[in-house]
């Protein structure tokens, strides 16, 4: 049981590259913290600094209030699951899992080791494979052995570096729920690095979004999705990503390439001197008017659909639009930050699966202007972020977390009492 505190952590690599630029983060006891960000933003570096495999250039790292900057990995009592599992190929599955116990020499008798390994193997359903060598296991089984090695000891925290990225989609889904269940059951502080949107949104109590070694926002998945602080977070969270449209302020309306939307009163002040903001609209906030009736507040528009993709439970429509050259460089830069491919400017609409819109149709859409975000062109700051709403979401998700942790602790206690 431990909380982890990062204070202005900096990492400069030997070749002078600054991979992490002053990250501060508080990870509560029992919390599931996710680190996300585009490739090369320093997620692994940060994780490896926490576990002690990488020296901390500047800043302070505390575990349970104790400074651990100078401690060797083995003295930090953390367990880590590597992206490529890093199993010991010359040892059987049993010995792989028992490895940390055997290193703690004299602490465990042979019987205790056996009993602990068997318990871990039972949790991960590895009982039938204990005598086999890692080379002969499937990807999912190897992954579970790596987890077994982590859970067999009483580590203060778990650290995961993209543990599921080598598995196929189906197995990834299964292991994801498995990890979530295990973390709740054990109630152990967890730091989890991932690329995967779904993992980030479903597993994390809170998600830390990194960009080029800098922390952008730390918040619950819902807050990140609904109240992003800037253009980068808005574009990074969500799949398909938020649509970004160049806008022009014209009196009290924002002129977008597809339609005009009214500017609410409180925003008008903020837009003073910002003639060219960027408007962000999530694909699911644009609706097909023939399936769903527009409200009074909604803005309607007509557009020609270029391509549609039907996925069974939902449907995507793509609407190309002419971009404003004055804003395009900013959108291109954002695209690069997000590891994008510099594709054409198009609007993605997440339609109801019942929608009858087909390729080439000219269709009527509507959207609620209140759901649109407006970003400053220069700084990328979200001008429509509602701090009260954000605080409310944060409070709620913290309550949710405490409750589920308490539930699992109570269940644990009940089980312990029963047996």
């Amino acid at each position, binding site marked *: 049981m431990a909380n982890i505190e990062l204070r202005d952590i900096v990492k400069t690599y030997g070749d002078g590259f600054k991979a992490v630029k002053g990250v501060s983060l508080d990870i509560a006891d029992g919390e599931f913290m996710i680190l996300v960000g585009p490739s090369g933003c320093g997620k692994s570096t940060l994780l490896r600094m926490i576990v002690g495999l990488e020296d901390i250039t500047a800043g302070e790292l505390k575990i349970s209030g104790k400074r651990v900057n100078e401690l060797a990995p*083995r003295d930090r009592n953390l367990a880590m699951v590597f992206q490529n599992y*890093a*199993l*010991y190929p010359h040892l059987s599955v049993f010995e792989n899992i028992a490895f940390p116990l055997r*290193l703690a020499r004299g602490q465990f008798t042979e019987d205790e080791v056996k009993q602990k390994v068997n318990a871990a193997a039972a949790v991960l359903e590895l009982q039938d494979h204990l005598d086999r060598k*890692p080379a002969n296991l499937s990807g999912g089984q*190897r992954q579970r052995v790596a987890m077994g090695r982590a859970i067999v000891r009483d580590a203060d925290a778990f650290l995961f570096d993209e543990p599921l990225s080598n598995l196929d989609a189906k197995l990834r889904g299964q292991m994801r729920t498995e990890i979530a269940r295990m973390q709740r059951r054990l109630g152990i502080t967890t730091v989890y690095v991932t690329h995967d949107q779904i993992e980030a949104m479903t597993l994390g109590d809170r998600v830390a979004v990194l960009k080029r070694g800098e922390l952008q926002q730390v918040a619950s998945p819902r807050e990140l999705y609904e109240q992003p602080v800037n253009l980068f977070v808005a574009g990074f969270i969500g799949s398909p990503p938020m649509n970004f449209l160049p806008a022009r302020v014209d009196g009290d309306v924002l002129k977008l390439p597809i339609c005009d939307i009214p500017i609410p009163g409180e925003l008008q002040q903020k837009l003073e001197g910002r003639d060219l903001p960027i408007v962000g609209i999530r694909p699911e906030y644009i609706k097909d008017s023939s399936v769903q009736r527009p409200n009074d507040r909604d803005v309607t528009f007509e557009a020609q659909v270029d391509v549609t993709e039907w996925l069974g439970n939902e449907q995507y429509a793509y609407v190309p639009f002419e971009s404003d050259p004055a804003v395009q460089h900013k959108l291109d830069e954002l695209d690069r930050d997000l590891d994008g491919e510099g594709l054409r400017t198009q609007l993605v609409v997440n339609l109801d699966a019942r929608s009858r819109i087909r390729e080439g149709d000219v269709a009527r859409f509507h959207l609620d202007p209140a759901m649109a975000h407006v970003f400053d062109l220069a700084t990328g700051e979200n001008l429509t972020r509602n701090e009260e709403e954000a605080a409310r979401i944060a409070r709620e998700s913290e309550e949710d977390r405490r409750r589920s942790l308490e539930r699992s602790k109570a269940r644990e206690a009940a089980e312990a009492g029963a047996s």
Partner: protein
Amino acid sequence: MEQNNKQKWSLALVSLPVIIWTLIPVIWIFSLAVKPQANQADNNFWPRGFSLDNFELILFGGASDLFLPALLNSIIVGLIATTISVILATFCAYAIARLNFSGKKMILFVALAVSFFPVISLVTPLFDVWRSIGLFDTIPGLVIPYLSLTLPLSIWILSAFFQQIPWELEQAAQVDGATSWQAFRKVIVPLAAPGVFTTGIITFFTAWNDFVFAISLTSESARTVPAALAFFTGASQFEQPTGAISAAAVIVTIPVVILVLLFQKRIVAGLTSGAVKG
């Protein structure tokens, strides 16, 4: 399937001449060793008649004073040289594979250059030096040159093995609670075992088979088998010692064959597979 069979056959066809080429001298030595003395020079490849006289001669008979101490010396020199060489090469190769220090390339290059040095040119100066510092005709006097001959190659082979081992394994071990030394001993060394055995065998063979150093740097007390063979004489003045030499050659070949058969099992390629995904 057909393709596979074809490949097998063509491989067999290519390897057959090689096998014959290498086996003929070996069989010939066996044949000479068991030929009775009278048939030694009969120019037959296969022996007509069979006798163990030659073995008796070198093990219990007149040549045993020469052969048995030499055999003991060979074993001692071989084992000491192998042990020291493997230990030194393991540490050195590990440092080269894992650490970034200046002069690393230089070390590897010099090591390679040393192994290209013609051995015969070293012998005379060594003889003088050994004589003056008292290493002549001693076991260390042989072990030292063998080490310098085998270390470069051992370091090259082992550093290649170490480089193959994913660094994450060591880091995983450290996170699991191992010290650097424990991680090295419990994870890296077992994984590099094929390399360790390979270098061990190479060193042992070099020491076991060497003639040049053995004949020049030893006299009575540290002489090894290859050098001792040169001093064999026939049972009488008129007999060639061919049979005895062949018998001795057979005896010293046996440990080599046993070693290879034993370690063949240990030198399993691809031991690291399964460590990491991919």
